[in-house]
C-alpha cells in the first residue's frame, strides 16, 4: 500500500514538473508575441516624422517597402 502511495507521489511530481515547464513555455511565447506587437508599433511611430518629412521622397529615410522592424525580444 505504502509502495503504491509513494509511486503516485513520484509520478505526480514528475508530471507536475513537465506540465509546469510546458505552461511556462506557453506563457513565455505569448509574452514574446504581445511584446513584439507593441515594440513594432513603437518603432513605426518613432520613424513616422522621418517617413513623412518633405526631404524624404525620392530617397526616404525609411524605405516605404522596408520590412517590419526587427524582432526586439528574441527568446534566448
Amino acid at each position, binding site marked *: 500500500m505504502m509502495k503504491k502511495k509513494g509511486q503516485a507521489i513520484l509520478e505526480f511530481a514528475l508530471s507536475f514538473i513537465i506540465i509546469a515547464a*510546458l505552461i511556462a513555455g506557453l506563457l513565455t511565447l505569448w509574452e514574446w508575441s504581445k511584446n513584439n506587437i507593441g515594440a513594432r508599433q513603437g518603432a513605426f511611430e518613432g520613424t513616422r516624422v522621418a517617413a513623412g518629412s518633405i526631404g524624404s521622397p525620392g530617397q526616404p529615410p525609411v524605405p516605404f517597402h522596408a520590412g517590419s522592424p526587427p524582432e526586439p525580444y528574441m527568446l534566448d
Partner: protein
Amino acid sequence: MFMNRKGQALLELAILGSLVIVAFSILIGYSERYNREQSYMQQTFRATLQAAYDANNSASYATVDFRRMPNVTSPMEIGALSVFSSSNQLVWSDGKKKDGEETEPKSYFELNRQTVTEIEPKDPVWNITEVTNFGYVSNLGAGAGFHKTENNNITTNKDLGATDYISGSSDVSGTSVSLGSSLGAGGVYTGGGLGRSTSMQ
C-alpha cells in the same frame, strides 16, 4: 488490475500531450497572424504616404498578400494559406502645381508586395478604391521524403519540397487585375519554391 491502471495513465498522458501541442499550435498561429497583419498594415501606410507625396495629392493603396502559415503539429507538411489585406487613403499636398501641371489623385493595388497596378479612381473627389470579385486558385504541389540509414549509428533525414502557384483575378474600382504568384522561402509568395530539411543522428 495493475495493467488497467497502467493503461489509464498512458491514455491520460497521450490525451494531455496532444492537448498541449494543440495549445502551442493555436498560440503560434495567432501570434504569427497578428504580427504579420500589423507589419503589412504599417508597410501599406508607408506606401500610401510615398504615393501621396509623389502625386502631390491624395493617394489610396489597397494590398493583398498571400502567405503560408507555419504548421506546428506537422512541421514537415505545408501550412494553411492565409490572405492578408490592408488599405489606406491619405492626402499629402502643398496645394501647388507639380512641374507646372495640375495634380490628380492616385489609386494603386499591390499584390504580394511585388506587382503594383495603377487604378483609375472611381470617385475623383473621394478617391475611393473598391476591391470586389476577388477570387483565386491555389495549385499546390508538395513532396516529403524520409530517409533512415542504419550503419554503426542511425541517421534520419526528413525533407519537404513544395511549390504553389496562385492565380486569379480581381476587380479593383472597375479595373480588372490578374493575379499570379509562386511560393517562396518563408511561406511568402515571392517565387523560388519552399524547402526545408532536418537531420538527426
